């Protein structure tokens, strides 16, 4: 895939607060990239720098190998879907979508044709005459997407576009956005703090925290091979424990040694270990690798969330079989379920 956007050592300083601490990131053509992180991690700031609404304190932004820091937003081949849609309240749906085309002085027949086509794409046929203020959140969202896409940008920026929608609508829109992205075949850069949203839609996820990139990878990589404690903790629920890498394939925690599949650490290096709740199994005591008492059990719909207290800590387990509270049980896991991460220097 062709390289489209490149951030080089982007630093942003807001009145003495470092919001971005040297971001290096490359985004390719036709990718669905998600910037994921807790609020205040700098993801929206990075997006706004790319959109041209704020400028970075240091560093360079390249678009098709051209430095664009000095290019005003209205000259960039990038369009944005804003956090709260930012539709023009004094215009109807059609005029909102037509705005960009009319600014470019396109023939009114072409405008009508393109807008109609775009309203069809986002499932708003026949809504052209409606006032945008009369639309539901989901519909406004679609208008915002149509308004941006109709300009045929090379990149679409989406700033937490689904944040204001209810859960069911959000799920629907997630699939729809993915579908639209495949249909129009352009790069989507999506900002969210919702890890599930990121896992569902993205080709690549960029996990950010405190102005720094923590990990870049596919959803599977990020989930199964988190690089550090922060990523493991942020992406889904995890059991994270401090451990010692005794040797290749041997890990020690909670005063026991276990087999694992990780190599390449120093002998006796201090590491973090993550075991996903769904990888832990509750077994009869004699078959367990660890032992404890069931402390609580919550029915979550698809699974039970069970907390087992051992001598050293509490483990969260997701399983389809319920266990009685107070029961003495064993915990089992396979060596490949133990994921070893090096300790973050900053954590």
């Amino acid at each position: 895939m062709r390289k489209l956007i490149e951030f080089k050592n982007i630093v942003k300083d807001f009145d003495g607060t470092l919001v971005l601490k040297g971001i290096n990131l490359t985004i390719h053509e036709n990718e669905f990239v998600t910037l994921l992180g807790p609020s205040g991690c700098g993801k929206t700031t990075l997006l706004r720098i790319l959109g041209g609404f704020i400028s970075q304190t240091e560093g360079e932004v390249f678009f098709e190998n051209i430095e664009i820091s000095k290019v005003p937003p209205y000259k960039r081949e990038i369009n944005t879907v804003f956090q709260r849609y930012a539709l023009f309240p004094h215009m109807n749906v059609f005029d909102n979508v037509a705005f960009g085309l009319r600014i470019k002085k396109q023939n009114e027949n072409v405008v009508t044709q393109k807008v109609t086509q775009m309203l069809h794409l986002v499932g708003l046929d026949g809504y052209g005459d409606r006032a945008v203020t009369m639309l539901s959140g989901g519909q406004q969202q679609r208008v915002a997407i149509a308004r941006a896409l109709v300009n045929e940008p090379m990149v679409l920026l989406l700033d937490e576009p689904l944040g204001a929608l209810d859960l069911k609508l959000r799920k629907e829109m997630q699939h729809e956005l993915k579908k639209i992205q495949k249909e129009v075949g352009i790069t989507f850069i999506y900002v969210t703090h919702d890890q599930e949203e990121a896992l569902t839609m993205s080709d690549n996820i960029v996990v950010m925290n405190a102005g720094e990139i923590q990990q870049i990878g596919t959803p599977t990589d990020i989930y199964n091979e988190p690089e550090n404690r922060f990523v493991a903790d942020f992406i889904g629920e995890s059991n994270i424990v401090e451990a010692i890498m005794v040797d290749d394939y041997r890990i020690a925690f909670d005063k026991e040694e276990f087999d694992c599949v990780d190599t390449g650490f120093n002998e006796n290096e201090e590491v973090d270990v993550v075991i996903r709740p769904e990888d832990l199994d509750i077994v009869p005591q004699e078959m367990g690798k660890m032992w404890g008492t069931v402390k609580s059990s919550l029915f979550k719909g698809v699974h039970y969330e069970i907390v087992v207290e051992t001598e050293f800590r509490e483990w969260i387990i997701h399983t389809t079989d319920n266990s009685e509270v107070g029961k003495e049980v064993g915990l089992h896991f396979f060596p490949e379920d133990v994921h070893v991460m090096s300790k973050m220097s900053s954590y």
Partner: protein
Amino acid sequence: MFIVIPMLLIVLYAFTTHGNAVVPLHFTLQNFVKFFDPVFIKVLGKSMQIAVVTTLFCILIGYPIAYIIANVNEKYQTLLMLLITIPMWINMLVRTYAWISILSDTGIINSLLAYLHMGPIKMMYTDFAVILGMVYNFLPFMILSIYTALAKMDKAIINASYDLGANRFQTFTKVIFPLSMSGVIAGITLVFLPAVSTFVIPKLLGGGQYMLIGNLIENQFITVGEWNFGSAISLIMASIIMLSMYMTKRFDRDVEEQAHSGGGKLW
């Protein structure tokens, strides 16, 4: 109660004349008929003209000022708005007297001109002086209401316009200005109403002979003692003001509806 009773009294006065000892009140429309005398109609016309011109100047001067204030660093916005409103803390009478000392034949401007061997220019007791005084007094209302409309505007909407390829000028004409119309309309109401009925400013800056509708009413009550006729004029003014307010509201709604261009068609 305290609002309604004086109003009712005015209505009562307007429709009556002094009766005699037997019938103390005498209902009549005479007070209203009296007003439709060319002399009084001319006064009304003049008042409207001055008020319209004042309002126009307030928009022309107030909009750019409000726009600039709304766009400076937020830290300075409050300070600037304070500066704009400070003159309003001082009694209007005092402020207007200050203008006399600037504009009069021996005032600051003419002294300066004399020093430069020019002038003197006659400024006091002209339309110019009256309009200047009104614009000066009412401008803060216009700036305040336009500023409020501009300041509460969602910055993301403006960014969206840039994002869609509109440059600064296009963004202003197509997005910012139409969205600030509500502020302009509120400003018009706040300026036009007092401008059409004020009597202090025309009296001081226009002189004793300068007659606007406000002065006419004041005269009837204070000098002539014709409370009945004065009340009738007030009622006529009130109806004109109500009508003009209604029309501004209509216009405001039309603008919005036009913007939505038949937003309700499907409903």
